[in-house]
């Protein structure tokens, strides 16, 4: 045992007995477990457990969703560069994971996102402009979660996994057959809250799907800093199934998530879906990934681009013609323009908003501070300011 053995890489170097050997084999055989229905080249393949037969309309719909989501995301990144947003967390590269899983949800299902689920929000019908409020700094979340059954973005890592579990417990109590889906990242898998959500959902058999987008990075930390075995395997020890899906394959993501949601509806409890994907951009616009990862890695993943692969399929199978693609380009540009204009027009919040909604039933303390603040502000209006 050398002194540098705290490095996360260590387990791989460790020699060891029977057990270690067994583990190595298991880790290697994990890759075949990746559910894939569309190869990176855009070829349809079958999977014994997850079959899906989307209509051409549906396929074009998924493609459109991904293209528009990416366009929106690019616009937001641009708006950040222009100073219109304070920050942006891009989903670039994760469109298939989000659109596939998002389109698997039913209207009465409920979604608990992190801060990066712009594609899922899109599927839920949330106006993309609303997503920008918090990044612009005008609010902490600009939509009513109950309008689209899409909870506000949660920034503190992992918390929402428990909210989703509790919500799902409530669904069961109501005798409803809706399902709940909680999104989180590979980094989040280390948080105690996520493990507790696994425990509660298993014990109460809650109808919840844990959708982990393993984009292989938590800011600068590769997944090896969070786990030494594939994340989907985590579920087993809590007593529910885990499955790894090609996160850049929108059809596989749709099929696997749909199956997991149906399983939840049938009263069979939680499932963990690990969508194996890649964060093609920076963590956020504040981040500079060249500090910690090699360009080649990103380039390798570009070959697996989720949008390209569906396009290749649509084209090779002649499921979409040029008109479709051109019209979509137009629609994209319109969306970009809409977002750009809407963001620029977004009003700053009223100063007094500081004191709003601290409590639902009000508070004497907030009232007192609000009044003091108002009087203080008024003193400037009266020209009494220093």
């Amino acid at each position, binding site marked *: 045992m050398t002194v540098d053995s705290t490095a996360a890489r260590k387990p791989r170097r460790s020699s060891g007995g029977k057990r270690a050997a067994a583990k190595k084999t298991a880790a290697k055989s994990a890759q075949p477990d990746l559910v894939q229905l569309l190869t990176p080249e855009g070829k349809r393949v079958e999977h014994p457990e997850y079959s899906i037969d989307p209509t051409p309309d549906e396929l074009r719909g998924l493609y459109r969703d991904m293209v528009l989501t990416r366009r929106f995301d690019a616009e937001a990144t641009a708006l950040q560069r222009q100073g219109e947003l304070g920050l942006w967390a891009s989903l670039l590269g994760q469109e298939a994971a989000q659109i596939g899983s998002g389109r698997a949800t039913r209207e009465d299902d409920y979604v608990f996102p992190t801060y990066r689920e712009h594609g899922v929000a899109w599927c839920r019908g949330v106006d993309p402009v609303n997503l920008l409020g918090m990044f612009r700094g005008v*609010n*902490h*979340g*600009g*939509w*009513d*979660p*109950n309008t689209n059954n899409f*909870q*506000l973005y*949660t920034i*503190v890592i992992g*918390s929402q*996994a*428990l*909210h*989703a*579990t*509790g*919500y*799902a*417990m*409530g*669904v069961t*109590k*109501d005798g409803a057959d809706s399902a709940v889906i909680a999104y989180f990242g590979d980094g989040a898998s280390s948080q*105690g*809250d996520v493990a*507790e*959500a696994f*425990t*509660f959902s298993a*014990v109460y058999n809650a109808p919840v799907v844990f959708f982990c987008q393993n984009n292989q990075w938590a800011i600068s930390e590769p997944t090896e800093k969070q786990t030494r075995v594939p994340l989907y395997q985590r579920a087993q020890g809590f007593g529910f199934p885990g499955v790894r899906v090609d996160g850049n394959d929108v059809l596989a993501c749709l099929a696997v998530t749909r199956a997991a949601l149906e399983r939840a509806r049938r009263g069979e409890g939680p499932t963990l879906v690990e969508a194996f994907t890649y964060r093609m951009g920076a963590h956020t616009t504040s981040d500079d990934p060249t500090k910690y990862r090699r360009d080649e890695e990103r380039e390798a993943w570009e070959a697996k681009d989720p949008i390209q692969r569906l396009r290749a399929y649509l084209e090779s199978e002649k499921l979409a013609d040029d008109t479709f693609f051109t019209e979509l380009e137009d629609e994209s540009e319109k969306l970009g323009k809409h977002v750009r204009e809407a963001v620029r027009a977004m009003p700053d919040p009223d100063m007094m908003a500081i004191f*709003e*909604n*601290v*409590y*639902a*039933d009000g*508070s*004497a*303390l*907030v009232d007192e501070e609000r009044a003091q603040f108002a009087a203080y502000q008024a003193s400037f209006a009266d020209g009494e300011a220093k």
Partner: protein
Amino acid sequence: MAQVKMALAKALNESLRKALDTDPKVLIMGEDVGKLGGVFRVTDGLQKDFGEDRVIDTPLAESGIVGTAIGLALRGYRPVVEIQFDGFVFPAYDQIVTQLAKMHARALGKVKLPVVIRIPYGGGIGAVEHHSESPEALFAHVAGLKVISPSNASDAYWMMQQAIQSDDPVIFFEPKRRYWDKAEVDAEAIPGPLHSARTVRSGTDLTLVAYGPMVKVCLEAAAAAEEEGRSVEVIDLRSMSPIDFDAVQASVERTGRLVVVHEAPVFYGSGAEIAARITERCFYHLEAPVLRVGGYHAPYPPARLEDEYLPGLDRVLDAVDRSLAY
């Protein structure tokens, strides 16, 4: 039940029972709250009568309890969560401070979080470490939470009713060493506002402010002071966030002297906030600085030292004397 004499723990039990009975959305959650009825028997018999679906034994994970309670609240339920002892609330602190307290504001008022977190708190029962703490200041500092504590069975009954009806998250501190103290509870009464203080003894020379377990001590101190010819007013604060400063101010404007008493450590405790604000409001009325009596800046000591650590009659009277000596 009209007017019935009962212990504080029993009053809470009756109040929870009534809430479960009247509102199907009310749930009880926590460790050992079911068959056992809680380690203090506050939920005794409730699972038997309302079922495992309404009175829920949870896994041993406080963050999970509060986190799932938040989810249940988002679904329209009104969970009443039990934390087994004061010292075990901290694994849930993140969910309480970051999510429960802030989600209503985050959602611009679109969602409500009617979650009550019950915490038996304070010392005086000879317990081992972590079973005697008074962490109320750590919650009162956090906007979005309401923090209250009853001192007697009647308030326990009514404040619990009001806390459950409140659309805000309420941290409900139960004075565990008063669980067995009995008082009349009138289940037909019309309770006053949840966050109002109550003058429990009138006096003219000095104001004592306390809440929860210390109200009884202050009443005893006031009685003892009377024998020495001093007229001490005692205010039961009832709510540590918000604080009914108007009531305290009105009293101090009459008495000119204030002593705040709590079990929690004095340093950064609720007494600091009361002293600071009342001094600001009553600057020209105060004949003495506001004095504070409370715990020391030290971990809660082993049981055989708690009588020295906790503010008792003598320490309160000492502060009364010091204040009157100004």
